[in-house]
């Protein structure tokens, strides 16, 4: 019974999160006008009524599979997030490792989507997404290991429980900031939009339309929701909080992280890939390693 409730709760979190993120994006871009609440639904309906394009000799299998796989990865990532004590769909001892696999496979899926379209700009976008995605993934792994150290466990439930004395964001603010980079990269938004950006006319999505595009855009938002829920669990205490029930706390904290991500999307510039790569390898990774070392010393002390 608990598993069924957890499943319903996670699906609700996913659906509401995707819709909230789409509304927030619209508000951030053009302001809160009339019809903004129904805007994502209207766009979705119009995309469903649209033809799905073809390109010349694409790799059909990978091209069509990439969006549902991306969506499945978002769902897999969300499955390790506990909604309440004992209410977690995939209560694996190595939840952090499962999340790491989601990160790695996201890079593969996004590359496949750009590569399989048989289109020049989509291919450029796919290549550079891989180049940027790899160092960001390494940064996030250091950060997640640091968050797991106080819990002495790789299970997300244990990490949430270890925050009863104080949320990780208070003890590891640098880790939280570095982890946010991963969210922008996984969903390729704003400063980390190397996959579907304007300079490559939509990048890996430049050749898609109709239901194909709808699935891809939903998957992008879904992975953002999964990331926000994970950030809420690992750094903001997950379901921990006074008065309100645990699942509601998860939802509110996820929404807060989502709002932060939307704000970051529009606030910071996207650097050319070479500059971003240098920044990540020369500054981001050493910073993440130093952060891990400091947390490790604190735990030992």
């Amino acid at each position, binding site marked *: 019974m608990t598993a069924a409730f957890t499943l319903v709760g996670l699906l609700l979190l996913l659906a509401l999160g995707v819709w909230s993120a789409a509304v927030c994006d619209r508000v*951030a*871009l*053009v*302001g809160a*006008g009339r*019809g903004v609440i129904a*805007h994502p*639904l*209207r*766009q979705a*309906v*119009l995309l*469903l*009524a*649209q*033809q*799905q*394009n073809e390109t*010349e*000799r694409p*790799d059909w299998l990978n091209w069509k599979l990439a969006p549902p796989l991306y969506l499945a990865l978002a769902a897999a990532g969300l499955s390790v997030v506990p909604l309440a004590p004992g209410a977690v769909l995939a209560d694996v001892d190595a939840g952090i490792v499962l999340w790491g696999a989601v990160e790695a496979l996201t890079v593969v899926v996004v590359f496949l989507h750009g590569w399989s379209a*048989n289109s*020049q700009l989509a291919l*450029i976008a796919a*290549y*550079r997404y891989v180049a940027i995605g790899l160092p960001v993934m390494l940064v996030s792994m250091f950060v997640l290991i640091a968050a797991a150290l106080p819990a002495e466990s790789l299970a997300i439930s244990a990490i949430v429980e270890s925050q009863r004395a104080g949320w990780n964001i208070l003890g590891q603010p640098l880790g939280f900031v570095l982890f946010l980079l991963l969210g922008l990269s996984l969903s390729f938004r*704003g*400063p980390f*939009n190397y996959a579907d*950006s*304007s*300079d*490559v*006319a*939509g990048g890996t*999505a*430049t*050749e*898609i*339309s*109709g239901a194909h*595009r709808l699935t891809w855009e939903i998957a992008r938002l879904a992975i953002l929701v999964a990331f926000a829920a994970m950030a809420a669990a690992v750094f903001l205490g997950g379901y921990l909080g006074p008065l309100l029930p645990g699942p509601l706390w998860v939802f509110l904290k996820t929404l807060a992280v989502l709002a932060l991500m939307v704000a970051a999307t*529009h*606030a*910071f*510039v*996207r*650097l*050319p*890939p*070479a*500059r971003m790569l240098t920044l990540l390898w020369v500054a981001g990774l050493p910073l993440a390693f130093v952060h891990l070392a400091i947390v490790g010393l604190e735990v030992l002390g």
Partner: protein
Amino acid sequence: MAVSRLASWAVTAPVAAFPAVGADAADRVCDLATDPSLTLARSPRHASVLLVAGQLRDADASALCRLHDQLPHPRATLVWGGGSPVPGSASVALEDDPRPALCDLARGLFRGERDSEPDLLANEPPNPWRGLGDFGQGGQGMMGGTPYGRMMPMPPQADLRDGLMLDAYTATVGPFLPTLPPGLVLEVTWQGDIIQSARLVRVPFEPPRDAAAPFHRALSEPGSISVLERIRAANHLRCLAHVLELLELHRLARRCRRTAVQAITGETIDVARLMRAVRRSGALAAAPPGLGRLPEEVAAEIGGVARRAGGKPVDVRARQREYADLGFEPITHAGGDVRARLLQWMEEAEQAVKLAEHARLRERVRFAHAVESPWGPLPATGHYEPSETGFDFTDLLVGCEWLEAMLVVASFDVAALARMTPRSPDPGLGEP
């Protein structure tokens, strides 16, 4: 049935249109982007309506047909001024607002009241497929033949920057790629995402005539400084908006475009605040130092923003008494690269608004021999001819990654690009 009923409900969503921009229409299309009821799509695959804005060249007709057929069904075409090879397309005059017609077209399409336009071209590859397998594998020759779309996988030269030996790939981009100035067609050879070579095929369209007209008139009769400076500010803000779009700063780009519209309509605007927001975003850090640096002799001949961004305080306005009375002094930046040109646009836009405010409508100016337009000194012939230096701006793109190359192109106005071209890029193709 259920989807079509839902689609009827959903048609109040913003109309997704892909603009195919021709002569004299760039500013108008840019201003359209400020309307929340309209989405200017980055790819034709993301649009329902093809908006053909302004007069196109004959040479662009086949590209327009290919573009048209890339729009997914249901689709329609709206011709906004000029002509179009699309039969049955709707049309409005260039002076009219196209938004009501765009909305009507989109609603008609999704409510099933209007038929989707059929393909203009046969759905077959332009070259025969020579590979034996589905993905081009097999065939004759050492590397499996030369199937359509694939080069021999032996790079003609080593990668210019990272030493990787990837397949070279040549493709033509433009004239409707939104990241390039309208009308510009380039033939680019990549290795990975690094540009190995670039060749100009067709020059971009010149600055819109209605924006340039007040500057031309100021040579023969006194013109309002306020009006001229507001046009200058609007032009610089639109150029800046395009760069910000490339850098994924869509919200700031939208603000720039909205401010450009307000500058033209004479509203009170706070450009200084906008520029502070642009600086805070880190936009200037996106361009590596030295990217797109223009040789001094070329900048000297191009003039305008490009020259002042190279550190030379050369501006026709400095010789005009009316501008001196307003305390005008040319702004300059050192470097002559992309970053310097962006800074130049930002600060000149701010300066232009200040000049317009100080001058109001009372101050008028008549230029003696030359006029300093937003695109540099206006040519006596009325057209921008290739410069005497013979400098080709595509040389600046070699060795750049794609985004860097787009930043280099976007950091010049269309007049500067037209002047930095070979004498005859592709004879007969550049004529409007």
